[in-house]
């Protein structure tokens, strides 16, 4: 179970660490605990898988990775595991999920593809259709990012 300090740590880290020489000390001071206690709590939260990763996320479009397409595929039920594992192995695929469908939306498998340009995305999709032997898919190119943010956790209860 998470105690109140853990919740405060999760809330603070999802908000962000300060870019200062001793960022953990700054956070520990804020929470009124020692840096050592903060380290040990963060370690435990990582072991439990609650903290997936500590570090930075970048705006890939600003860093030269301009192409971005979400592809929704129809994958036969019995092939989902095989296709999912193959897709997870491709470095240009950053997200890969099996999802529920709707009556007018039979696509059950989603991949997010990032590349330097839209043309390169299309080449990668073509390569995927060949390697995975899939033919039914929808291309959902990004037109504009409206929002991308970290969810705040526990901010209302602490």
């Amino acid at each position: 179970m998470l105690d109140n300090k853990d919740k405060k740590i999760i809330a603070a880290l999802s908000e962000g660490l300060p870019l200062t020489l001793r960022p953990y000390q700054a956070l520990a001071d804020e929470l009124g605990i020692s840096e050592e206690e903060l380290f040990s709590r963060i370690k435990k939260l990582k072991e439990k898988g609650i903290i997936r990763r500590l570090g930075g996320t970048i705006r890939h479009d600003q860093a030269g990775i301009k192409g971005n397409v979400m592809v929704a595929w129809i994958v036969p039920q019995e092939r989902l595991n095989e296709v999912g594992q193959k897709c997870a192995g491709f470095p240009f695929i950053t997200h890969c999920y099996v999802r529920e469908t709707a009556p007018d939306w039979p696509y059950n498998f989603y991949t997010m593809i990032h590349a330097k340009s839209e043309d390169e995305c299309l080449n990668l999709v073509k390569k995927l259709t060949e390697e995975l032997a899939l033919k039914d898919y929808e291309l959902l190119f990004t037109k504009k990012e409206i929002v991308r943010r970290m969810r705040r956790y526990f901010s209302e209860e602490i």
Partner: protein
Amino acid sequence: MHQLDPLDKKLLQIIQDDFPLVSEPFTEIGARVGLSAEETLARLKKLKQKGILRHFGASINSRKLGFVTTLCAVSAPAEKEEAIAKQIAIRPEVTHCYLRKHKFNIWFTLVAKDWPAVEKILEEIAKETGLRPRHFPARKMFKLRAVFHIADN
């Protein structure tokens, strides 16, 4: 696009990896590229200011905290798509919202405390916009690793 020099690129690569859990993490990171902690921090602050470094902290597995997530899609009239997307994105439960080149032109993800909360939010969006989002909860995740290879080699 901003001009990134090779050191910026290396730092952006390293900062996407697991961040060291030590008292002076930037000293350690700087050492890997031959910079002092101060130089490293100055570069990262600049990258943060420019918005290239979007977030620096922890990515949290919301499911492990008992939250549920789902991907939602809306088909909005083209001339209103941005206004409607902004109206949707204002909710704190919406973590991603994109306009996409498709008949379903607004796609967003929700992170909510449980499924009834998801239904309630979708209901509210339907009332506000006159458009009922459909949503596709994940059955299985094979990969979630938004780390981008930007270093020159």
